[in-house]
């Protein structure tokens, strides 16, 4: 596999993983409301949100295709870098115990409780609460996926492949969710977010630098070097933060 092929593979894998982890969270919301209030309104909400997301990808993808690649890579790279650092920062804080892990079972319980307490308001023949919760849940979680798919796809000139990665994840999560009929709490969300954060940060760094005219040594092979450096740095930071947390706990007990 050549360097271009491997970066395209990583791009598709990144879209797949980002999409999978966001879809798991969206699935929890839809299940929580659907189990309590019935499936018709939430499923229409899901379909409406998905339709908007698909249109967004198509419109923005077509618009970005008209922009020259260098300024596009600068803007997309900078945004991806800032966005990826958000994911990476939170993943490091979670891995080191400084931030609570996202618990799908807890989120599911909270969603069910709210769905039980909410009143019944029927609009256009739909349970409006169930529709809006499912719609907003899928739209908001999906926006992150759209952002990643468009950024990855447009800067690499492979929007179709990035969209395929996201679509595969959507189908996989949907099928598993339908079969199990409960939240996918065993999916290692933080690990996946850690990986996606590293990929977004790496590609963002690479493209932003290319966008201002940098010539990377080894061209796209440099991606692997940058990724390895960020992986080592991130694991080092997790280790240091864990040690700091343990030392703080010991001194608290001693005091």
């Amino acid at each position, binding site marked *: 596999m050549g360097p271009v092929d491997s970066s395209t593979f990583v791009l598709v894998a990144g879209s797949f993983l980002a999409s999978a982890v966001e879809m798991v969270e969206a699935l929890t919301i839809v299940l929580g409301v659907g189990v309590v209030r019935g499936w018709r309104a939430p499923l229409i909400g899901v379909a409406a949100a998905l339709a908007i997301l698909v249109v967004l990808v198509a419109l923005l993808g077509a618009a970005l295709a008209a922009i020259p690649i260098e300024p596009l890579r600068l803007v997309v790279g900078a945004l991806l870098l800032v966005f990826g650092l958000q994911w990476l920062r939170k993943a*490091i804080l979670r891995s080191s115990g400084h931030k609570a892990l996202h618990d799908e079972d807890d989120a599911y319980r909270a969603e069910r409780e709210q769905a039980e307490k909410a009143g019944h308001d029927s609009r256009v023949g739909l349970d409006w609460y169930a529709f809006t919760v499912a719609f907003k849940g899928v739209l908001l979680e999906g926006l992150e996926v759209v952002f990643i798919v468009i950024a990855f796809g447009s800067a690499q000139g492979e929007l179709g492949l990035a969209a395929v990665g996201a679509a595969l994840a959507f189908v996989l999560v949907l099928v598993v969710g339908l079969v199990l009929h409960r939240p996918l709490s065993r999916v290692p969300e933080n690990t996946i977010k850690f990986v996606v954060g590293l990929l977004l940060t790496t590609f963002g760094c690479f493209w932003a630098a290319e966008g201002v005219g940098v010539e990377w040594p080894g061209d796209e092979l440099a991606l692997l070097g940058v990724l390895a450096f960020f992986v080592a740095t991130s694991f080092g930071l997790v280790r240091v*933060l864990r040690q700091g947390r343990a030392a703080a706990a010991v001194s608290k007990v001693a005091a």
Partner: protein
Amino acid sequence: MSYVRRFLSFWWDFVVGDDWRVAAGIGVAIAITWVLVDRGVDAWWLLPVAVPLVLVQSLRRTVRSGG
């Protein structure tokens, strides 16, 4: 809050998140890279060095403030 302000606030939170200094730091690093490249220095190393520095500062602030 007006619709436009809510819209901008949503996108700010979405992209920049809860630590604007990360975005500012990355913006400065890209600008310096640009200037160096413009003066004939192929500063490919600058962003990979700047990213961990910005990340460490952000993590330090978060941990100090108690998460």
